[in-house]
């Protein structure tokens, strides 16, 4: 029932209605956050970038054309914000907060997840930015290939190719590969 009003309709209403924007925000905050966390590998930056993305989206709502691709439009903003914001990875905040786990000795599970995310973030910085972008848009932000294609200004086939190559790159560069190959 929450889906019976489309993102496009909400986006139109959101220009005048803070609640409509809040609903768009709630629908999409997780995908934006996952995208930024995958790239930055730390909670502080992911939260900062998530805030910036939505503030920018709020400012730029008027430039959104109601063509059914709100998610792609939003992730385009996320992508540009990230490009502007790159910072060193020396400034890492424990990821426990990302997992809703208050500070304390990490449990095995949270520690593993943190390690995985950090390792992915590190690996993402070592592969072609375009491939990294495609992989995170599809696999972290949950965009369809069509949406990612729209955003990246490419064909779906080209995005699939980028994702595929990106996955190969990542596999070779992360410790996750150890498990995958088992």
């Amino acid at each position, binding site marked *: *029932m*929450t*889906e019976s*009003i489309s993102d496009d309709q909400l986006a*139109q*209403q959101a220009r*005048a209605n*803070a*609640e*409509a924007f*809040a*609903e768009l*925000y*709630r629908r999409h905050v*997780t995908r934006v*956050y996952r995208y930024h*966390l995958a790239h930055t590998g730390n909670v502080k930056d992911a939260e*900062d970038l998530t805030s910036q993305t939505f503030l920018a989206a709020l400012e730029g709502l*008027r430039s959104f*054309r109601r*063509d059914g691709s709100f998610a792609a439009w939003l992730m385009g903003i996320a*992508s540009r914000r990230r*490009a*502007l*914001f790159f910072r*060193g*990875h*020396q*400034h*890492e905040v*424990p990821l426990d907060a*990302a*997992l*809703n786990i208050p*500070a*304390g*000795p990490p*449990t*095995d*599970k949270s*520690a*593993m*997840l*943190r*390690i995985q995310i950090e*390792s*992915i973030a590190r690996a993402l*910085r070592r592969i072609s930015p375009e491939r990294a972008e495609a*992989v995170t848009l599809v*696999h*972290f932000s949950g965009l369809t290939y069509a949406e990612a294609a729209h955003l990246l*200004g490419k064909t779906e086939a080209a995005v699939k190719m980028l*994702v595929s190559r990106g*996955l190969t790159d990542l*596999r070779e560069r992360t*410790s996750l*590969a*150890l*498990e995958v*190959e088992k």
Partner: protein
Amino acid sequence: MTQHNLHPQDDEMAKELESIAKAILPNPAFVLELEEKLKAAHKPKGGFAFPALKNFIPALGWAAGLAALAFLLIWVIRNLAPNPPQPAAGGTPAPQETPPEPIIVTSAVTQPSGETYDWHGTTLILQAELPTAPSQLPIYEYQPPAPITLEEARSLAAQMGLNGAVYGNPGAYLIVDGNQRLSISAEGRFEYLPDYPRYPAWARLGNSPATLPANAEEQIEPFLQSHGFTFEHVIRPSALLGGYFVLPLTPDGYPVCHEYFRCAGLLVTLDEQGILSVEGSLVRYAPVDAPKTYEIISAEEALQIVLAANGQAGMIEGMNAASGPAPTWYRSYPPEQAVTYYGWLNVLPSAEGGAPLVMLDGYPVTGSIADLDRGNEGFAAARGRFRTQNGGLVFELESYEPLTGFVDGLQGTIRKHPDGTTALETIEGETLLLPDPPANLSLPLENAFVLGMRQGETFDWKSIDLRMTHGGGGGGGGLGFYRLNLSGTPVPFPTPEAAPQFGGGGGGGRNGGQTYTVQAGDTLTKIADQFGVTVEALVQANGLGDPSALQIGQTLVIPVPDSFTPQKVEGLRGVVNITIYKQADGGQRAEYNLWNKDTSFPSLPLTGKNLDALQAWQNRPVDVWGTIEMKDGAPMLKVERYEIPFPDLQFQILRGKQQSVTLEGQAATLFTATDGQTYVQMSPDGFWVDGSTAGLPGDEVAIEVLIVPGETFGGYPAARVFAATMVPQGGPTHELTITANQIPMYDEPQPGDFTPPTAVIERVELVYYLPDPNGNTDIADPDARYLQPAWLFSGHYSDGTEFFILVQALKPAYLQPEVAPYTPPG
């Protein structure tokens, strides 16, 4: 996500990434805080809005029902003619709950006197009994409703005492009997309004006018009896929904609840004159493998799971900061005066071959309506007059004109002017006259949100509310319940030591990113020595709070060893990016990074003297001489000197058109500026081709760029794009300003400056959990159809935020180590 044409190992990698992605959830406190910030930053800009959206998420769908006002709500009807499931053998209906006191959300939580626990740094107070429960219970399966037929609609109406005209089409009907209205939606949900004039439909789209009177039960019980609702039930207030739930009980005596403070049953709202609306959602279900029952954990065990939980599966959490409906004033229209009313015209065909029902913003329409049919539905300027009929207003239509657009929503302060008029001063600085202001408005009223239509200097308003300053917001945690395993053969859950899907995998090579699994007898020193890194680097890389708390099987990231050989760089070209952190003491700390593609570190933090002068060249090229060193496992560039290769380089705003092309085998975007010059778009660092477009082909766009002399790609001069925006055609010019030269400033994060509020559990009860069938759940998934026992902990944080935690009650033998689908709260 379905993968195509992927190498099998890449497919595995894709699944791994997605499982990690799913485990990432933003911190609910952050989510709430940002939502508040966004609402505060929201400035309506004279765009268009539907009349008022509900204050809480699940109701937003209702606004979409605007075009079909009669079918606003939600209710399972077929099940209403109750055909309650037969008790499973051994299951005796045994209502256990006594109706609770209404929960007052806005007042401070009373001095807690219960047991106190440390809940990961938050104080958790248990101020409720831990009820006892049977050790075994049956499981049920939800039976989705079929579309309703005309006969069924009539039968339900008759049960509720309505014998009126039926409008609509198969699957969705509206029955009108005098001032009573019963609407039934395509999904088989219903809403009953005993006295429609008290309940103007368009107002219903705004905030619920309902209150929570203390004697509600005295009104609800007789209603239930007189309308054929004879099921066992408990009555429960819902502060979030502004009414009372009438919750049918399973044969075992427990209510059926969903995520996000919702339960299956009737939701009754009341006003000072009595019952205002009744919405229904009685679910039908049947026992699974009757008379089999399944062992469940006790309330005490569930509490221990809550206390130990780390956002894992087996739990669903949610919170809501809404404090009931925002105060709202509706325009009252004097009868018998000629007016032009702007609103939604709805035309509902008769289901019985009669005349259609016409409504304007929910007001019944009489007069010149003979020619109207569904094709006339939409936003319209209606000329005519309001008249009183049967205690309510009807609109007598003379003529109408379709309009494109919606209703404006404006924010601002409402003031009374010395000349006696009342006006809205919008946050955009406009002053608009408000005709017929409500008498009980206390002026000046700040942060008002007004819906209506502009008429020159006048704002023809429909409603005024205080949503901008009123509560709202939700959030959630918990990964969802485990899938059920009713096979009788327990599926082993991975232990942390085994952790097959995540495990570390011993030593490995000595490249970056390797991990190590802690063995018996390991110490941090030993591990650090083994990999040639410092203990501090190890602690930092793994965020170890208490270094002595190493656990066997724990996976550690091994940072890049200190044995890194410092690298000299001579004239390393990169882009400088600076961030400033404001300190609590008023000071500032600047972080400098060099984004480059010539070293193995794409982003190198810079240290050294005289870096401050770099602040004038934010996001622009710089050549650096110095040494790359490794500090605590992270690289940094010690700067000896630097040069600015293009001291006159400035950002520009260019207008023009974009074109997607392929250059040197890459998807690229060519930008042709209005002066005819064509550029190829590059990323802000100039390292890669930016194939993105801001609009559709042919759109005029504005881009913020840096054009570095000599930089080309594919034969075109390169433009590093920092921002792009579409220029709306014919619309107001969107101002794109240069911001790439500005240095972002943030407050230095203060460790521990967030004080978690105290949480008070006010109720612990056993319920049957069913993923909300009206949510986004895939009903084809068997796990979305089970009604299974769950322990529901509910209460408030000390800031008034309401929370709930559902804990899966079935013992692990009946669960699979895999998360079932559900609609996350918030």
